[in-house]
């Protein structure tokens, strides 16, 4: 999955704070100034220090985020090859993408297929593993480290390793298939039908990222809940559906959103392993953006694609958030 590991943790907290901020509401500066008695001198000095201290981030935010977002929106409405100045084409890039670019729909389909299969598989497996670990298996710490290890690997090294594992004739996966099941394994990365399963299989190797977060969630479920359920004679399955799942539903939401955003942005592995091939069967969306921008220097078209991706990610996140009120339960806990 895309991005460095810490993002997994970042998002869990990010969502908590987002919910908190939504509840509190972003304070209207005008209103709060009216409500408050005149700020004392020391309070004003503290506020000044605050702004000076966050200045590095604030400059970075304006220069490396706010400006790029605005510029990207502008570029997406132009034809731009970096050498000559951008030429205004209105919605031309978007129209081209949606109506004439054959690879746009292809890359969208590839990316969605991957996201819709790999993310639920990863979450289900991660949850099962976390629940097993949570039974306080001896050596739990070591097992947790082992499962987490693949997520620490550089993605380029991971790609090289899996190219080797997936290799036809001498690859160990095809060999295992032949020995264990007497099947002739496919040419994983050079067969258009098997390249997507190969990427999904590879993504499962990184299941430890989501697993660690599920485990932390499971460990914070109050034991009293299980004791009460057991007194009521609830079976293991009933306990899972009635106690475990509702208790960790916020964590499921976090992992789902992080997983989706990561899967939609897969790039490095596909770039190194297949370059999008064979026959564009692994032509992920970010690969299309990269090629248009830095191979063909169609910066305007690539910016339009990036904006489509931004909107898709935003809509997906909002849809998941909107449905979450039905299946996510926030306890009165911390």
């Amino acid at each position, binding site marked *: 999955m895309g991005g460095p590991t*810490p*993002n997994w*943790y*970042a*998002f869990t*907290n*990010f969502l908590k*704070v987002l919910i908190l*901020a939504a509840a509190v509401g*972003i*304070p209207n*500066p005008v209103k709060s100034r009216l409500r*408050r008695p005149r700020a004392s001198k020391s*309070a004003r000095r*503290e*506020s000044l*220090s605050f702004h000076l*201290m*966050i200045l*590095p981030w604030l400059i*970075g*935010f304006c*220069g490396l*985020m706010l400006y*790029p977002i605005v510029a*990207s929106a502008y570029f997406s409405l132009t034809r731009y090859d*970096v050498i000559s100045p951008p030429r205004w084409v209105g919605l031309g890039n978007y129209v081209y993408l949606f109506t004439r670019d054959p690879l746009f729909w292809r890359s969208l389909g590839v990316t969605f297929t991957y996201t819709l299969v790999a993310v639920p598989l990863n979450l289900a497996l991660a949850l099962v593993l976390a629940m097993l670990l949570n*039974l*306080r*298996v001896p*050596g739990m710490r070591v*097992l947790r*480290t082992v*499962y987490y290890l*693949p997520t*620490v*690997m*550089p993605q*380029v*090294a991971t*790609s*090289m*390793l*899996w190219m080797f*594992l997936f290799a036809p*004739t*001498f690859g160990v996966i095809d060999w295992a298939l032949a020995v264990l099941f007497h099947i002739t394994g496919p040419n994983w990365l050079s067969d258009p039908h098997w390249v997507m399963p190969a990427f999904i299989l590879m993504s499962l*190797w990184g299941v*430890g990222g989501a697993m660690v977060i599920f485990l*932390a969630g499971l460990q914070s479920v109050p034991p009293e809940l299980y004791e009460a359920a057991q007194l009521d004679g609830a079976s293991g399955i009933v306990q899972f559906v009635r106690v475990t799942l509702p208790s960790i539903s916020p964590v499921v939401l976090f992992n789902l959103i992080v997983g989706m955003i990561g899967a*939609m*942005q897969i790039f490095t592995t596909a*770039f190194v392993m297949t370059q999008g091939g064979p026959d564009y069967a692994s032509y992920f969306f970010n690969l299309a953006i990269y090629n248009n*921008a830095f191979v063909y220097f169609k910066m305007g078209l690539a910016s339009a*694609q990036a*904006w489509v*991706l*931004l909107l898709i990610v*935003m809509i997906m*996140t909002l849809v998941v958030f909107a449905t979450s009120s039905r299946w996510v339960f926030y306890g009165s806990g911390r």
Partner: protein
Amino acid sequence: MRRQRKIHRILAALVLIPGALVILFPFYWMLTASLEHISQLVQFPPQLIPHPLDFSSYPRGLTFLPFGRYFFNTAQIAVLSTLGAVMSASLVGFAFARLHSPTKVFFFTLLLSTMMLPASVLLIPQFVLFKSIGWVNTYLPLIVPAYFGGSAFLIFLFRQFFAGIPEEVFDAARMDGCGNLGLYWRMARPLAVPAFTAATVFHFQFSWNDFLAPLIYINSNSKYTIALGLAGFSSQYGSTPWNQLMAVSLLMALVPILIFFFAQDYLINGIVVASR
């Protein structure tokens, strides 16, 4: 009841231990492949335990491309950008944790919402920006942005840690006339060793493993990072020298893996602090 729990534990171990072996197998396979001669590698069936061992992939892989230089380049970028990220993120995190301002909630919400932005939206304009000031094919685009707060995640990590320090620690220093910057430097910073360790490791690993940014900004071979060199390895060779490729991959991966092992407890503490 207790016996049932014990049975559950044994059953769980029966799933988790083979699963762990499946997770570990690719690492083992990478190691053995790096210790085989190319003729042993492509034979069928593969050798589960290589015999004889051949260590020549390491010197050969490392000299086929100037990987020594690439390691140095990558380390240089990772160290300089980590320095900036940790310094600026801790300062910003401190301000968000301990100082009051009417605009704080607004900026904090803004900070956190930047985490959701797909990197590709920022990629092209940032490239155009850095190109216009002549930074393409230098390490500056890979280092300088880290000095502006590192990342939202790091700022958040520091904020959570600093927020957990009891107010009394600062009250005493305030009485003594310590300014806000002094509070950060003299009181908060020495107490935050675990947070600094976690942040250093996270950012170093991110920078060490990064592929996309070097791919876009670095053109000349001598300035390549290991990730770039490794990705270009197989295309420079006629037939893929898997043993050398695995040797170099292993060396590249060893750095973040070793750091992870040594800093594991700090990292997990950092995560726990951040999730409170």
